[in-house]
């Protein structure tokens, strides 16, 4: 559980910092969260499908990454395109990098494939991790808005306070350790 939480928070923090480079509106954070959540769900389930259809029958375990990385690239290109078509008013520009650089997408896919679980478990992991990532990104946005004021010591403004906030967030989430492994 702790491993997953750490990966999830780290990935959300990186995405949050990428979003911070431009003036991120609330809608942009929502759209990025949704896009990343979709990419995690599809990457995990698609990765499992690739494992069953191609990797396992052809015994290509050593070349697994050559299939998963293009799959992640395809998702990083396709999901923003699809969202832009479905909702033209949404700010879907430059979402490719937050999805492509999302460690959660590839990390969770490899983890789930390695465990060789059942389809329902794979789907559950994908959905839960996707929603968890979205939630973590929203929490980071709220946290940075609450800590983005002039009273924060000058040396801690920006990235340092975001990292400190992430540390406290991980501490808080550690309290849930053990609950999901019953």
């Amino acid at each position, binding site marked *: 559980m702790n491993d997953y939480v750490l990966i999830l928070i780290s990935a959300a923090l990186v995405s949050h910092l990428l979003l911070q480079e431009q003036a991120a509106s609330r809608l942009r954070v929502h759209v990025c969260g949704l896009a990343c959540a979709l990419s995690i769900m599809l990457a995990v389930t698609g990765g499992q499908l690739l494992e069953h259809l191609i990797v396992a029958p052809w015994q290509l375990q050593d070349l697994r990454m050559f299939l998963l990385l293009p799959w992640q690239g395809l998702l990083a290109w396709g999901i923003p395109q699809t969202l832009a078509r479905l909702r033209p008013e949404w700010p879907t520009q430059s979402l490719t990098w937050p999805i492509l650089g999302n460690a959660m997408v590839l990390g969770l896919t490899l983890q789930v494939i390695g465990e060789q679980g059942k389809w329902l478990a794979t789907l559950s992991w994908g959905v839960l991790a996707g929603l968890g990532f979205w939630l973590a990104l*929203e*929490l980071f946005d*709220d*946290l940075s*808005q*609450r*800590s983005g*004021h002039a*009273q*924060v*010591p000058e040396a*801690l403004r920006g990235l340092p*306070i975001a990292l*400190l*906030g992430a*540390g*406290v*967030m991980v*501490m*808080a*989430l*550690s*309290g*849930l*350790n*053990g*609950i999901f492994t*019953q």
Partner: protein
Amino acid sequence: MSRNTASPDPRLRDAMGLVLLACLPGLATSFWLLGWGLLWSLGLCAFTAACCEAAALALRKQPVTAALSDGSALVTAVLLALALPTGAPWWLPMIAAGIAIGLGKQAFGGAGRNVFNPAMVGYAFVLLSFPLQMNHWPAQAPGFSDSLQLVFANGEQIDAWAGPTVLDGLRHNHSLTIDELFASHPGFGNFGGHGVEWVNLAFLSGGLFLLQRKVFSWHAPAGLLAGLFLFSLLAWNGSGSDSNGSPLLHLLSGSTMLAAFFIATEPVSGPKTDVARLLFGLSAGALIYLIRTWGSYPDGTAFAILLMNLAVPFLDRLALRYRQVRP
């Protein structure tokens, strides 16, 4: 403005004074139950909190005396001392208080700006970093010299005096029924934890005094108690050996009343509207029960409050929408 001459906010100072006054019944009962260790812990927390606050303010060129005299650092220290095990070595309360003030309060901008409850940041930090020392609850209140030795001589022969709490006992029980646990386990009292039930009632009386003086609204404490009661009632599986504990046991064990009236009501890191406060309390109560019963820690107050601190903007937005759609 001179660094040391600005006066503190009188409303904040009065509120902190009332909170400290309301802590007295709980402090006195805890002292009766836990002995001198509580006073050492309180002194160490207060000293470190004051030093860290002063150092941080001096570094930031802010008024030191005014900020120290508002009493907020002392309240943080008292809450920490009440939550920390009284048999813990001397450095543990100092680290907890330093983290609470440094990371929980001053890093985010000081009084009135903290995003998280400072006392709970310090508590969670030491709980995760020093889990062994955080179990040093004495089975019986040690005397003056014994407590001095325990705290300042690094707690020699811990097994000889440390005892499991009621929540520890409940968690690790696999063979005895609840009635047998109450009859035989040293951690169990009449309704909840041995002696802890009286500590909880003392904090309840202090909390009711604060409610009567309108220091905070009833929403967060009522929500927390209702959440804990409701979830422990729904998940109550009888009094067998696999029991999760009755609602009354959960209400009168651990730090329930302290959390409900003194921690969940912290105004800065908590929600700003009544509906959001009610939701905050309900969710915190549910999380406390979830962590106590199925998590890895016997009492999840600190984690529950920190998690709910993260959700405060969402709760405030939700309450705002509720207000807009309400006819």
